[in-house]
Protein backbone atom coordinates (compact mmCIF):
# COMPACT_ATOMS: atom_id res chain seq x y z
CA UNK A 1 0.00 0.00 0.00
CA UNK A 2 2.70 2.39 1.03
CA UNK A 3 4.78 1.59 -2.04
CA UNK A 4 1.77 2.27 -4.28
CA UNK A 5 1.29 5.75 -2.81
CA UNK A 6 4.98 6.48 -3.18
CA UNK A 7 4.85 5.23 -6.77
CA UNK A 8 1.93 7.51 -7.57
CA UNK A 9 3.74 10.47 -6.02
CA UNK A 10 6.81 9.72 -8.05
CA UNK A 11 4.78 9.42 -11.23
CA UNK A 12 3.12 12.74 -10.40
CA UNK A 13 6.43 14.52 -10.03
CA UNK A 14 7.83 12.99 -13.21
CA UNK A 15 4.66 14.21 -14.93
CA UNK A 16 5.24 17.71 -13.58
CA UNK A 17 8.83 17.62 -14.77
CA UNK A 18 7.75 16.50 -18.24
CA UNK A 19 5.14 19.24 -18.39
CA UNK A 20 7.75 21.83 -17.46
CA UNK A 21 10.02 20.41 -20.17
CA UNK A 22 7.26 20.68 -22.79
CA UNK A 23 6.34 24.17 -21.60
CA UNK A 24 9.98 25.14 -22.00
CA UNK A 25 9.75 23.95 -25.58
CA UNK A 26 6.70 26.14 -26.16
CA UNK A 27 8.43 29.12 -24.57
CA UNK A 28 11.07 28.97 -27.30
CA UNK A 29 8.23 29.63 -29.75
CA UNK A 30 7.01 32.75 -27.98
CA UNK A 31 8.31 35.82 -29.84
CA UNK A 32 10.59 38.24 -28.08
CA UNK A 33 8.77 41.26 -26.70
CA UNK A 34 8.86 44.54 -28.54
CA UNK A 35 9.59 47.64 -26.56
CA UNK A 36 7.02 50.41 -26.59
CA UNK A 37 7.69 52.98 -29.34
CA UNK A 38 10.03 55.76 -28.17
CA UNK A 39 11.08 54.09 -24.93
CA UNK A 40 14.63 55.35 -24.36
CA UNK A 41 17.23 53.25 -22.59
CA UNK A 42 19.97 55.34 -21.00
CA UNK A 43 23.08 53.46 -20.06
CA UNK A 44 25.81 56.10 -19.86
CA UNK A 45 26.96 55.10 -16.38
CA UNK A 46 24.47 52.55 -15.01
CA UNK A 47 26.15 49.28 -15.96
CA UNK A 48 29.54 50.50 -14.77
CA UNK A 49 27.97 51.52 -11.46
CA UNK A 50 26.31 48.11 -11.01
CA UNK A 51 22.81 49.49 -11.55
CA UNK A 52 20.27 48.43 -14.15
CA UNK A 53 20.13 50.94 -17.05
CA UNK A 54 17.31 53.51 -17.06
CA UNK A 55 14.17 53.16 -19.18
CA UNK A 56 12.52 56.47 -20.01
CA UNK A 57 8.98 55.94 -21.35
CA UNK A 58 8.16 58.86 -23.65
CA UNK A 59 4.48 57.84 -23.88
CA UNK A 60 3.89 58.11 -20.14
CA UNK A 61 5.44 61.56 -19.98
CA UNK A 62 3.77 63.02 -23.07
CA UNK A 63 0.37 62.18 -21.64
CA UNK A 64 1.27 64.60 -18.82
CA UNK A 65 3.60 67.16 -20.37
CA UNK A 66 4.14 68.74 -23.78
CA UNK A 67 7.55 68.10 -25.36
CA UNK A 68 8.49 71.71 -24.68
CA UNK A 69 8.61 71.33 -20.90
CA UNK A 70 11.53 68.89 -20.95
CA UNK A 71 13.11 69.71 -24.29
CA UNK A 72 13.05 73.51 -24.02
CA UNK A 73 12.61 74.45 -20.35
CA UNK A 74 14.67 71.66 -18.79
CA UNK A 75 17.28 71.48 -21.54
CA UNK A 76 17.01 67.85 -22.60
CA UNK A 77 18.69 67.47 -26.01
CA UNK A 78 16.92 65.41 -28.68
CA UNK A 79 19.46 62.62 -28.40
CA UNK A 80 19.39 59.35 -26.47
CA UNK A 81 22.34 59.44 -24.10
CA UNK A 82 23.22 62.94 -25.30
CA UNK A 83 22.42 64.56 -21.96
CA UNK A 84 25.10 64.12 -19.37
CA UNK A 85 22.66 63.12 -16.64
CA UNK A 86 23.90 61.78 -13.33
CA UNK A 87 22.35 61.29 -9.89
CA UNK A 88 24.09 64.33 -8.40
CA UNK A 89 22.46 66.60 -11.00
CA UNK A 90 19.09 64.92 -10.49
CA UNK A 91 19.25 65.40 -6.72
CA UNK A 92 20.20 69.04 -7.31
CA UNK A 93 16.99 69.44 -9.31
CA UNK A 94 18.33 69.31 -12.85
CA UNK A 95 16.97 67.10 -15.64
CA UNK A 96 14.68 64.36 -14.19
CA UNK A 97 15.12 65.97 -10.78
CA UNK A 98 13.10 69.01 -11.85
CA UNK A 99 9.98 66.89 -11.32
CA UNK A 100 11.19 63.71 -9.62
CA UNK A 101 11.60 65.49 -6.31
CA UNK A 102 8.74 64.07 -4.28
CA UNK A 103 6.50 67.02 -5.17
CA UNK A 104 5.54 66.79 -8.83
CA UNK A 105 6.54 63.15 -9.23
CA UNK A 106 7.98 60.47 -6.98
CA UNK A 107 11.47 61.10 -5.70
CA UNK A 108 14.86 59.51 -6.36
CA UNK A 109 14.41 57.03 -3.51
CA UNK A 110 12.50 54.79 -5.91
CA UNK A 111 15.68 53.69 -7.68
CA UNK A 112 14.29 50.63 -9.42
CA UNK A 113 11.32 52.36 -11.03
CA UNK A 114 13.74 54.11 -13.42
CA UNK A 115 16.69 51.74 -13.22
CA UNK A 116 14.58 48.92 -14.55
CA UNK A 117 16.17 47.81 -17.84
CA UNK A 118 17.73 44.45 -18.55
CA UNK A 119 21.43 44.81 -17.63
CA UNK A 120 23.74 45.62 -20.57
CA UNK A 121 20.98 47.08 -22.74
CA UNK A 122 22.71 49.73 -24.85
CA UNK A 123 21.66 53.38 -24.91
CA UNK A 124 19.08 53.83 -27.68
CA UNK A 125 15.58 54.91 -28.69
CA UNK A 126 13.65 51.68 -28.97
CA UNK A 127 11.53 50.82 -32.01
CA UNK A 128 12.97 53.83 -33.88
CA UNK A 129 13.08 53.66 -37.68
CA UNK A 130 16.86 53.64 -37.54
CA UNK A 131 16.93 50.73 -35.09
CA UNK A 132 14.52 48.79 -37.31
CA UNK A 133 16.59 49.51 -40.43
CA UNK A 134 19.68 48.17 -38.72
CA UNK A 135 17.83 45.10 -37.38
CA UNK A 136 15.07 44.25 -39.89
CA UNK A 137 11.79 42.56 -38.94
CA UNK A 138 12.97 39.04 -39.68
CA UNK A 139 15.84 39.32 -37.23
CA UNK A 140 14.38 40.65 -34.01
CA UNK A 141 16.81 38.89 -31.70
CA UNK A 142 19.06 41.48 -30.09
Amino acid sequence: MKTEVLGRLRRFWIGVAMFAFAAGGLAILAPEGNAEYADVVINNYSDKAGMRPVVFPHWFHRVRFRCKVCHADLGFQFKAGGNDINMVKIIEGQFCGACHNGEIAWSVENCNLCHSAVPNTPTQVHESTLQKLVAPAGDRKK
Partner: protein
Amino acid sequence: MRPWKLGAWLVLGLALTAGAMLTEAADPNTFNRLLPSAAKRNPPPPDDGIHDPVNEGTHMLQPPKDAFGQLPKAPSGNYIDWVKSLDGKKIQPRYDRIDTAAEPIVMDLNIVREVKGSMPDVVYPHKQHTEWLDCSNCHPAIFVPQKGANQISMAGILLGEKCGVCHGKVAFPVSECVRCHSKPKGDGAAAQKTGTTPPDAPKK
Protein backbone atom coordinates in the same frame (compact mmCIF):
# COMPACT_ATOMS: atom_id res chain seq x y z
CA MET B 1 7.34 3.47 -12.47
CA ARG B 2 8.24 1.00 -15.17
CA PRO B 3 11.12 1.95 -17.41
CA TRP B 4 8.99 1.93 -20.56
CA LYS B 5 6.63 4.46 -19.01
CA LEU B 6 9.50 6.79 -18.15
CA GLY B 7 10.72 6.35 -21.70
CA ALA B 8 7.29 7.25 -23.06
CA TRP B 9 7.17 10.44 -21.01
CA LEU B 10 10.65 11.37 -22.20
CA VAL B 11 9.71 10.82 -25.84
CA LEU B 12 6.54 12.91 -25.40
CA GLY B 13 8.50 15.75 -23.81
CA LEU B 14 11.13 15.67 -26.53
CA ALA B 15 8.50 15.52 -29.26
CA LEU B 16 6.68 18.56 -27.84
CA THR B 17 9.92 20.51 -27.52
CA ALA B 18 11.04 19.64 -31.03
CA GLY B 19 7.53 20.29 -32.34
CA ALA B 20 7.47 23.71 -30.74
CA MET B 21 10.83 24.57 -32.23
CA LEU B 22 9.83 23.39 -35.68
CA THR B 23 6.26 24.73 -35.94
CA GLU B 24 7.34 27.86 -37.84
CA ALA B 25 9.30 25.79 -40.31
CA ALA B 26 6.45 23.30 -40.60
CA ASP B 27 3.99 25.76 -42.15
CA PRO B 28 5.78 28.22 -44.39
CA ASN B 29 2.54 29.63 -45.83
CA THR B 30 0.95 31.08 -42.73
CA PHE B 31 -0.73 34.45 -43.04
CA ASN B 32 1.26 37.47 -41.84
CA ARG B 33 4.34 35.39 -41.24
CA LEU B 34 6.47 38.37 -40.17
CA LEU B 35 3.74 40.68 -38.91
CA PRO B 36 3.69 41.01 -35.13
CA SER B 37 0.12 40.28 -34.06
CA ALA B 38 -2.01 43.20 -32.86
CA ALA B 39 -2.40 41.53 -29.48
CA LYS B 40 1.34 41.78 -28.97
CA ARG B 41 1.36 45.58 -29.39
CA ASN B 42 1.94 47.87 -26.41
CA PRO B 43 3.14 45.02 -24.16
CA PRO B 44 3.27 45.53 -20.39
CA PRO B 45 6.77 46.41 -19.10
CA PRO B 46 7.70 42.90 -17.86
CA ASP B 47 7.05 41.48 -21.37
CA ASP B 48 8.54 44.24 -23.53
CA GLY B 49 12.06 42.87 -23.81
CA ILE B 50 13.85 45.90 -22.37
CA HIS B 51 12.49 46.01 -18.79
CA ASP B 52 14.03 43.46 -16.46
CA PRO B 53 11.22 41.18 -15.19
CA VAL B 54 13.42 40.24 -12.24
CA ASN B 55 13.34 43.86 -11.08
CA GLU B 56 10.58 44.53 -8.55
CA GLY B 57 9.95 48.07 -9.83
CA THR B 58 9.22 46.79 -13.35
CA HIS B 59 5.97 45.29 -12.08
CA MET B 60 4.84 48.58 -10.53
CA LEU B 61 5.04 50.51 -13.81
CA GLN B 62 1.85 51.29 -15.70
CA PRO B 63 1.25 49.08 -18.76
CA PRO B 64 0.78 51.30 -21.86
CA LYS B 65 -2.55 49.65 -22.72
CA ASP B 66 -4.03 50.86 -19.43
CA ALA B 67 -3.33 54.43 -20.47
CA PHE B 68 -4.18 54.09 -24.17
CA GLY B 69 -7.68 52.62 -23.85
CA GLN B 70 -9.61 55.84 -24.49
CA LEU B 71 -7.22 57.45 -26.97
CA PRO B 72 -7.72 57.63 -30.76
CA LYS B 73 -5.85 54.94 -32.62
CA ALA B 74 -3.10 55.21 -35.25
CA PRO B 75 -1.55 52.57 -37.53
CA SER B 76 2.00 52.81 -36.20
CA GLY B 77 4.27 54.17 -33.50
CA ASN B 78 2.52 53.83 -30.15
CA TYR B 79 -0.63 52.99 -32.18
CA ILE B 80 -2.05 56.21 -30.72
CA ASP B 81 -2.85 59.38 -32.64
CA TRP B 82 -1.27 61.88 -30.27
CA VAL B 83 -2.34 64.95 -32.26
CA LYS B 84 -5.99 63.86 -32.22
CA SER B 85 -5.68 62.95 -28.54
CA LEU B 86 -4.56 66.48 -27.78
CA ASP B 87 -7.09 68.18 -30.10
CA GLY B 88 -9.93 66.17 -28.60
CA LYS B 89 -8.68 66.93 -25.08
CA LYS B 90 -8.39 63.20 -24.37
CA ILE B 91 -5.08 64.12 -22.80
CA GLN B 92 -4.21 67.41 -21.16
CA PRO B 93 -0.44 67.59 -21.02
CA ARG B 94 0.92 70.61 -19.17
CA TYR B 95 2.72 73.33 -21.12
CA ASP B 96 4.61 74.29 -17.98
CA ARG B 97 6.27 72.11 -15.38
CA ILE B 98 4.14 73.54 -12.57
CA ASP B 99 1.57 76.00 -13.95
CA THR B 100 -1.40 73.88 -15.01
CA ALA B 101 -3.07 76.89 -16.65
CA ALA B 102 -0.19 77.76 -18.98
CA GLU B 103 -1.31 77.79 -22.63
CA PRO B 104 0.95 77.13 -25.61
CA ILE B 105 1.83 79.92 -28.02
CA VAL B 106 0.35 78.41 -31.16
CA MET B 107 1.42 79.63 -34.59
CA ASP B 108 -0.97 78.76 -37.42
CA LEU B 109 1.23 78.82 -40.51
CA ASN B 110 1.51 76.10 -43.11
CA ILE B 111 4.74 75.71 -45.05
CA VAL B 112 4.39 73.95 -48.39
CA ARG B 113 7.50 72.23 -49.68
CA GLU B 114 7.46 71.20 -53.30
CA VAL B 115 9.14 67.85 -53.60
CA LYS B 116 11.26 66.74 -56.55
CA GLY B 117 9.81 63.25 -56.94
CA SER B 118 6.33 62.09 -57.85
CA MET B 119 5.03 62.18 -54.28
CA PRO B 120 2.49 64.84 -53.31
CA ASP B 121 4.05 68.01 -51.91
CA VAL B 122 4.66 68.31 -48.21
CA VAL B 123 2.52 70.56 -46.06
CA TYR B 124 4.21 71.36 -42.78
CA PRO B 125 1.72 72.69 -40.22
CA HIS B 126 3.25 74.93 -37.56
CA LYS B 127 -0.04 74.69 -35.65
CA GLN B 128 0.21 71.05 -34.55
CA HIS B 129 3.92 71.39 -33.87
CA THR B 130 3.66 74.51 -31.71
CA GLU B 131 0.97 72.80 -29.63
CA TRP B 132 3.71 70.52 -28.37
CA LEU B 133 6.96 72.37 -28.92
CA ASP B 134 8.71 75.69 -28.45
CA CYS B 135 10.14 77.56 -31.48
CA SER B 136 13.62 77.09 -30.00
CA ASN B 137 13.30 73.31 -30.22
CA CYS B 138 13.62 73.43 -34.00
CA HIS B 139 14.90 76.93 -34.85
CA PRO B 140 17.63 77.65 -35.73
CA ALA B 141 19.58 74.48 -34.92
CA ILE B 142 17.54 71.91 -36.89
CA PHE B 143 15.73 74.18 -39.37
CA VAL B 144 17.03 77.58 -40.44
CA PRO B 145 13.94 79.81 -40.31
CA GLN B 146 14.36 80.99 -43.88
CA LYS B 147 12.75 79.85 -47.13
CA GLY B 148 15.01 77.63 -49.22
CA ALA B 149 17.70 77.39 -46.57
CA ASN B 150 16.96 73.80 -45.54
CA GLN B 151 18.00 70.76 -47.55
CA ILE B 152 15.69 67.92 -46.57
CA SER B 153 15.79 64.40 -47.95
CA MET B 154 14.04 61.19 -46.99
CA ALA B 155 17.44 59.52 -46.69
CA GLY B 156 18.47 62.10 -44.10
CA ILE B 157 15.15 61.79 -42.29
CA LEU B 158 15.53 58.01 -42.09
CA LEU B 159 18.95 58.56 -40.53
CA GLY B 160 17.46 60.85 -37.90
CA GLU B 161 18.17 64.27 -39.41
CA LYS B 162 15.74 67.21 -39.84
CA CYS B 163 12.15 65.88 -39.44
CA GLY B 164 13.76 62.56 -38.45
CA VAL B 165 14.97 64.06 -35.17
CA CYS B 166 11.45 63.30 -33.91
CA HIS B 167 9.58 61.47 -36.71
CA GLY B 168 10.62 57.83 -36.58
CA LYS B 169 11.68 58.08 -32.95
CA VAL B 170 8.87 59.57 -30.92
CA ALA B 171 6.49 61.30 -33.35
CA PHE B 172 4.67 59.22 -35.99
CA PRO B 173 7.15 57.32 -38.20
CA VAL B 174 7.84 58.04 -41.88
CA SER B 175 5.85 55.00 -42.96
CA GLU B 176 2.79 57.26 -42.71
CA CYS B 177 3.79 59.00 -45.95
CA VAL B 178 0.59 60.91 -46.66
CA ARG B 179 0.36 62.62 -43.33
CA CYS B 180 3.20 64.86 -44.61
CA HIS B 181 2.97 64.35 -48.37
CA SER B 182 -0.58 65.60 -48.43
CA LYS B 183 -0.86 68.22 -51.20
CA PRO B 184 -1.42 66.76 -54.67
CA LYS B 185 0.66 68.52 -57.29
CA GLY B 186 -0.77 71.36 -59.39
CA ASP B 187 -3.00 70.48 -62.36
CA GLY B 188 -2.19 66.82 -62.22
CA ALA B 189 -4.10 66.57 -58.98
CA ALA B 190 -7.54 66.12 -60.52
CA ALA B 191 -6.30 63.43 -62.90
CA GLN B 192 -4.57 61.62 -60.06
CA LYS B 193 -7.72 61.62 -57.99
CA THR B 194 -9.76 59.86 -60.67
CA GLY B 195 -7.19 57.10 -60.60
CA THR B 196 -7.60 54.44 -63.27
CA THR B 197 -10.98 55.69 -64.52
CA PRO B 198 -10.53 56.69 -68.19
CA PRO B 199 -11.64 60.26 -69.11
CA ASP B 200 -14.48 59.00 -71.32
CA ALA B 201 -15.91 56.64 -68.72
CA PRO B 202 -19.67 57.11 -68.19
CA LYS B 203 -20.52 59.30 -65.22
CA LYS B 204 -22.48 57.73 -62.44
